[in-house]
């Protein structure tokens, strides 16, 4: 639902970085998106495409999404397990006390750019 606002934040951050790096074009943007970040990848890609079509430096940029699984660490038995549908129950000892170790990420990792030739 808020993928458009997230896409807007990505475009703003990438545009700022592109200026800083003197990039003529941004070819791709790589993200890390956790399973428990509340973001729907397809919907984000759609919003990103729409916004980048209006941003010259970003037009046609590919959005690459690395999905990160939702995992937790049991405080009792110290084993790490996959969290399914947000249910944080340790499958080994049936304990509810756990700590999320991954899956909430929402990060821009890297850009692939083309530089302005005259400034190379």
């Amino acid at each position, binding site marked *: *639902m*808020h993928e458009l*606002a*997230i896409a807007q*934040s*990505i475009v*703003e*951050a*990438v545009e700022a*970085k592109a200026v800083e*790096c003197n*990039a003529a074009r941004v*070819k791709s943007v790589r*993200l890390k998106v956790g399973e*428990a*970040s*509340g973001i729907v990848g397809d919907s984000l890609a759609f919003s990103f495409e729409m916004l980048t079509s209006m941003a010259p430096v970003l037009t046609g940029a590919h959005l690459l999404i690395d999905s990160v699984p939702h995992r937790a660490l049991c405080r009792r038995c110290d084993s790490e397990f996959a969290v399914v*549908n*947000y*249910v*944080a*129950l340790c499958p080994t000892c049936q304990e*509810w*006390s756990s700590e999320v170790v991954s899956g909430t990420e*929402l*990060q*821009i*990792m*890297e*850009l*692939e*750019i*083309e*530089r302005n030739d005259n400034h190379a």
Partner: protein
Amino acid sequence: MPKVTLAQNILAVNEHVAQEIRQSLSARGIRALNIMSSPGAGKTTLLERTIERLRGRLGIGVIEGDVETSADAERIEAAGAETVQINTQGTCHLEAHMIRDALAQIDLAHVDLLVIENVGNLVCPAAWDLGEDLRVVVVSTTEGDDKPAKYPQMFAISQVMIVNKLDLLPYVNYDLQKVRRQALSINPNLHIFEVSCQTGEGLEAWCDWLGTFARGV
């Protein structure tokens, strides 16, 4: 082709502003609460009832987020709290910069507890830190007993869940036990209060807890 590393949070700008808000409120001894729910679960009514009960004990300031209209802000003002209205003009959630701007319009001298009523929506507000110390999600007996399972992120990031409209339980098909179980399976540390803003049931326990929280700076 050159690669440029960023490794930054997408919402870094919002998080930065939220952190500034948190520090400046904390320096003034003010605690902040972000109250979220689907539309009509009873956030404004709960706030009215809470302010009526706590206003003798605590200074309360309110920021009302609404897509349109200032109706909720007027209700809160009438209940006796200093209120600022934010109209998000279509945005489905509040963002930290809106809170920063609203704080500039509120006299914080006598405020101990700042309450932010977010836009009615169980999805988007979960992603935006507003600089609050406590996140409260309100659900009501008229909206179906599957909300925690359907919108788990909201329940995972909240510290308190309030189940409202207990007075309507006889008329609806709502399994309170199931809601508790679902919510706790997502977030075992969730504090749960069950209330009716209509009859007042359960409000005393919630207000006592909140009063203690607000003073525990």
